[in-house]
Structures are given as C-alpha cells and as structure tokens.
C-alpha cells in the first residue's frame, strides 16, 4: 500500500549543504591512506599500521555468513572528509549549518541535560566537544581518538589493535587503515566516573564512509559508562559505517558501553566491538540497533581472568528493507567466569532480524556460567526472524543455559487492548514496548525516552 522509498520515512532524514576543508578522492588506495595520515600529522608507526591494514584488507574476503553485503560499492565511497578547519570547544564557534543540524536533533537541549562531556562527531571528525573540569581533575581522559593519539601516544600505542587485531576481519582491517574520529577514554585506577560520558555523532556527506575508532582503558577498580547515540541523514547512495571499539577492563573494573544506533536505511553498519575483561572485572554492552539497511554487530566479551563477568543486552528492530544481524559473543578463558547474552528483536513490514551468537568455553574455564536468552517478536506475516546460536564447550564443569522464543502479536491481544479504548496502533506499540522494556530500563533516561520514540517512529505505517 505504502510504496514510499524506505529512506523517505526517515524522520531525521534532512540533509545539509556540505562544507569541506578537505575531501579525499573516491575509493581506497595507498595514496588515500597516506593522505589521511599526513593530514592528521600522525606518528610514523600509525601510518605504517594503516598501510599494513590496507594490504590485509585487500586480501581478506567478505564474510561468507551473515547479511548480504554484495551491494556495497567500495570504490564509490569517500574514505576521509574533514569538515571544518579546527575543532571547536565552544558551541557558538560551530559553522551555522552544522549547528542547525544539531539543533534539529536537539543537541543544545541535550547538552544542557547531558551531565558529563559531549563529544559530537560531524563528518569523520570530532568538531565539538566540551569536557567538564571534574573529569580532568580526576585524571579521566575523554578525547576524540585523533587528539588521544596526539596527547597520549604511549597509551594509544600500548593498546591500539591489541583487542581487535588488524586481521580480525575484513572490516576491522578497513577501519584500521582509514579510521578517523571515535573516542579515547582513559580512567585511572580506582576512579569512578559517576556520570555517563556521551558522544553524539552524525554523518552527512553522501557516499561517505564513517570509520570511528574507539579505545577505552579502565584501570584497576575503576568504573565508567560510555554512551553513544547516532542518527543519520539521508544519503543518495548506499553508505558504509564500519567502526571498531576496543575496551580494556582491568582487574575489578567495570565498564558499561551503551549504543543506540539509528542510521538511515541505506547505511551498511558493520561494527566490531570487543572487550577484554581481567580478573573480577565486569563489561556490559547495551546495544540498540534500529536503523541502517544492514547491521552486522556482535559485541564480544573475552573473559580472561578469574571471576570476570560479561553481559550483552541487545535490541534490534528491522522494518521494511532492513536486515539486523545482531547478537553477542562470550569467550570464557578463566575459571568462574560468567556471561549473559540477552537479545530481543522485532521485525515488521517485511524486515528481517537474525540473532547470531557464540558462547565459547575454553579448557580450564572451570565453573564457568553462561546464559543466553533470545526472544523475537514478529509483527506481520511478511517479516522474518532467525536464530543462529553457536556453543563450543571444551570444559566439563560448566553451567550453560539457552532459551529462545518467537512470538507474534495475536488478534485476541489486539482485541483485548482496543476494548479498553486504545487504538490498534497504540496496542501494537504497547506490546512492543513491553517486549523490550527489560532492556530499555537499562538505558540512561534520555535514551530510554528516545528509544521508545524511535520505536514508535519505526512502527508508524507498519500496522496493517
């Protein structure tokens, strides 16, 4: 009935005139990589790392599993764009059209509310950031990755690529060769960052790849909650977003990483996220995937030390022409490690969700515990959901649980709710919100509100 192109429904799909200082040629070549590195004034080791990654990228095939990636036109993508001359730390110094874009997604509003620093990324580069004094007083570093490399080269060099090696997968190699932006967070020993660190970014240039690189190091006994939320404008052709996030959780530290992703529906979102968790440390991924054409994302926890704990909470919503291939991985290397993966997916309007997960218990990880729950809700007959759980258990004394459910919204449920005076659309929305509530309640307040609103936007027009 509704034959509008999918991106036409995208509420945040406004497009601002582009304004560049530097734009690389289309496609990825050694010259482009050298230009990017030179432009950023990077040390030689990083340039060499990029070049090595480029050759690895060229040799790696596309993954043979997961979503269909054959439509990506790698040669049409701009791999690096720098929109303004310098980073600004004052809101008023931003170019008007960039400020206007942020206004429309509510950044100034958000900034007032956001309690820690805001690092907003616009076209490959962090152009706006404000970090509260309290962070630096505690010795906490919260920078864009480029600045992190400049100001803390030793820390970056020590950890960069140690959690996700260059050759981990084709897209990790791609990111390593052309990464730009992302966040660098360092939390010293014993420091608790009470308020979430929030990065809000969006991308704007047609055909532009977006390759942030994020590195978080949480020293012993520290705590930090990092939040990223994205909304993206319309693109004229397919676009690629391929980020890499590496997290080091030292002994007894705890890191929570929250993402709400709402790319417009022509974006390929192929992200590698992984945390290494040492003794008694805790890593929590909260991952919401609403937008994009294709998402492939499986936040992972590598539980290296005794009693390390990892948790992945994942929500995926696939509407028309979308495929959300999401899930999580928990790798147990040490005794008494525990993991939990909870996935909730919703598909409507012919959309497709896949849960893909791995639990791997290595020999010696005695008394490891893992629980996987994946629930799918399918809103209509045209939509689809699949589950691809993998378990590799190489140790005897372990406790592994796996539950999976698939449900549909029934006519009797709709009749019941409408008999109380709510519309069919509201009834659907109530059921969907109830379904994801266990994960939404883990989000910071602003994001919980946004999540519900985005789900409602997604559902608009999907009720038959």
């Amino acid at each position: 009935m509704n034959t509008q192109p999918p991106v036409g429904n995208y509420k945040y799909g406004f497009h601002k005139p582009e304004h560049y200082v530097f734009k690389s040629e289309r496609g990825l070549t050694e010259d482009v990589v050298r230009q990017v590195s030179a432009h950023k004034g990077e040390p030689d080791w990083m340039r060499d790392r990029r070049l090595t990654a480029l050759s690895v990228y060229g040799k790696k095939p596309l993954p043979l599993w997961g979503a269909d990636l054959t439509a990506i036109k790698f040669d049409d993508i701009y791999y690096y764009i720098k929109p303004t001359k310098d980073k600004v730390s004052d809101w008023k110094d931003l170019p008007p059209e960039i400020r206007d874009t942020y206004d429309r997604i509510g950044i100034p509003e958000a900034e007032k509310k956001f309690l820690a620093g805001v690092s907003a990324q616009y076209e490959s580069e962090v152009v706006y950031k404000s970090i509260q004094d309290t962070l630096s007083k505690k010795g906490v570093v919260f920078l864009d990755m480029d600045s992190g490399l400049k100001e803390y080269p030793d820390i970056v060099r020590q950890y960069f690529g140690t959690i996700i090696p260059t050759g981990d997968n084709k897209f990790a190699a791609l990111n390593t060769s052309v990464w730009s932006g992302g966040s660098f967070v360092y939390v010293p020993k014993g420091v608790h960052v009470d308020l979430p660190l929030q990065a809000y970014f969006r991308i704007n240039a047609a055909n532009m790849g977006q390759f942030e690189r994020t590195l978080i190091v949480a020293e012993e006994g520290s705590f930090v909650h990092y939040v990223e939320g994205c909304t993206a404008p319309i693109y004229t052709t397919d676009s690629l977003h391929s980020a890499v996030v590496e997290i080091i959780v030292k002994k007894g530290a705890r890191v929570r990483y929250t993402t709400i992703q709402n790319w417009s529906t022509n974006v390929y979102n192929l992200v590698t996220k992984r945390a290494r968790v040492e003794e008694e440390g805790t890593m929590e991924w909260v991952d919401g995937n609403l937008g994009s054409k294709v998402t492939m994302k499986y936040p992972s926890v590598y539980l290296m030390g005794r009693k390390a704990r990892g948790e992945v909470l994942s929500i995926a919503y696939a509407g028309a022409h979308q495929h959300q291939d999401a899930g999580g991985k928990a790798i147990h290397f040490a005794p008494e490690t525990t993991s939990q993966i909870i996935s909730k997916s919703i598909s409507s309007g012919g959309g497709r969700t896949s849960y893909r997960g791995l639990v791997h218990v290595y020999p010696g990880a005695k008394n490891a515990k893992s629980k996987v729950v994946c629930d799918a809700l399918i809103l209509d007959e045209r939509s689809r959901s699949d589950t691809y759980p993998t378990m590799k258990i190489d140790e005897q004394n372990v406790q592994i649980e796996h539950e999976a459910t698939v449900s549909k919204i029934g006519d009797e449920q709709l009749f019941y709710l409408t008999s109380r005076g709510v519309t069919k659309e509201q009834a659907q929305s109530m059921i969907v919100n109830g379904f994801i509530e266990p994960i939404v309640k883990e989000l910071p307040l602003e994001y919980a509100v946004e999540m519900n609103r985005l789900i409602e936007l997604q559902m608009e027009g999907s009720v038959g």
Partner: protein
Amino acid sequence: MKQKSSKMSTLVISHLVASIEEKEILHGVSLTVRGGEVHAIMGPNGSGKSTLASVLLGHPAYAVNRNQKAGNTKIILDGKNLFSLPTEKRALAGLFLAFQSPIAIQGVTVMNLLRTSYQARFHGDGSQAPSVQNPVLARRTLVGGLPIADFMALVGDYARRLNLDESLLRRGIHDGFSGGEKKKIEMLQALVLRPKFAVFDEIDTGLDVDALKAVSMGISLLRKSGVGIIIITHYQRILKYVKPDYVHILVSGNVVKTGSAALAKKIEDSGYKEFTG
C-alpha cells in the same frame, strides 16, 4: 438537567445478528439497558452468550448482520449508533467488557494499560496519549486530567477493596495470574475506567467465595454510580449477591424469555429444559 441526562444513559441493542465462519450464532437479539440497571443474561452452553459480549465490542472474528431479513442492527448508546465503529471507539463511547478468559499480554503491565486506557477514555481520542507508555515520561504525566499520583492512589484504593495483591499491577496483564486474580483485574479495570455500560462475561466462574464477594461488591459499586450492567452467566451463583432487575434467557441465539429475579431462581430449580424443548 445535565447531570441527570449523564446519569440516565441508555443502551439499545436491536436485531443483533452475528455469525462466525458462516454459522449464524445470534439471530436478532434485542435488549434495552438503562443506567443503574442490572440485567442478567442466562442460558445453556452454546446459546450465544459470549458471542453477544464479543459482538457488542466489535470483535473482528464475527461477521455481523449478514442476514438482512432480521432488520437493521443497531447498538445505540445515548442516541449514538456504535454499530459501525471500531472496538476502541465503542470503548471510548462507554462500553466495557470484562472477559471470561482474558488473554495474557507479556510486558504490558496492568498499571500501564490502566493508565493508557484511562488517558484515552478521559482525555482525547486515545491517539493523543502515546507518551504514557513510556515508564519514564509517564511518571511526569497527567493521566486523563488527573495528576499521576492521584491516579495511582485511585487505582490502589480499588485494588485494596478488591483484596488484590498490588504487586500484580506491575506485572504483565494476566501473565501467570490465577483464575481469581484475572477476574479481579477485569473488575478493577471496570471500576477505574467508569464505563456507562459494563458487560461481565462469566465473571463468577472459577471464583472462591471471597473473590465472588469482592467481584459482587464491585458490581454493586458500579450500579450505585449509575453504570448499566449486563451479567452473562450460566448459573445464578453471582445473582445471590447481586440482585438483577431483569433476567433474560438466551437459547440458540434468541432471547426466549425476559423476567424478574424470580426467573433466575426458577432456572436454578428446574434448569433450561423448559426453554430448550
């Protein structure tokens, strides 16, 4: 005058014909109920009692009025014909159905549903209230013109009078509830939503005496406040606690007899034989 007219609501059901899967269940049922009255509809299994309840609220599984010879079907509430309206519009106009076996809906808490439906009923057409589903926003929102704290207190008060465990309010509606809890939750909704006319479909089945008393108390409360009541029941058990003004015997999709409370007593003594033969 104005107050009087709102108290004296009238529901006129005329020539209600309904079929499911080509099989006609109701053959032209007519009934008039006024505010504050209690009507009992009694009948043997399969007589069409529950169909009547579903069709009044516009259940999509039933085809209505295929049979033209039965005349024009109308469901008129205070002069407004609800017959062609969707379910939610009928509810907003003031009809309420307490389900015989209400379906469980995981994740939609009792409180959330009460809030959303109260908002829809007393504040706009229902499409104005999407934000109340959000537990965060809901805390700050007026519900149907009532501050949220007052609304919660209202719900809590009714819950206590029904001797309902208040922790149920925070659970998915009917999800794992016992038979008695389900009936009480249906009654709670009727009390909170203050309909003009409420239909109770087999509200008395599977209840222990205490729960039966609580539910009867609820019906009496509604009746006193001017709500017109239709009690659908197989036995006259609940009618010992709530004395009906009228008793209608429904057999094979037709109302075959209408009488006073004495008629229910008669059914108790000699069953439906007299009417089915």
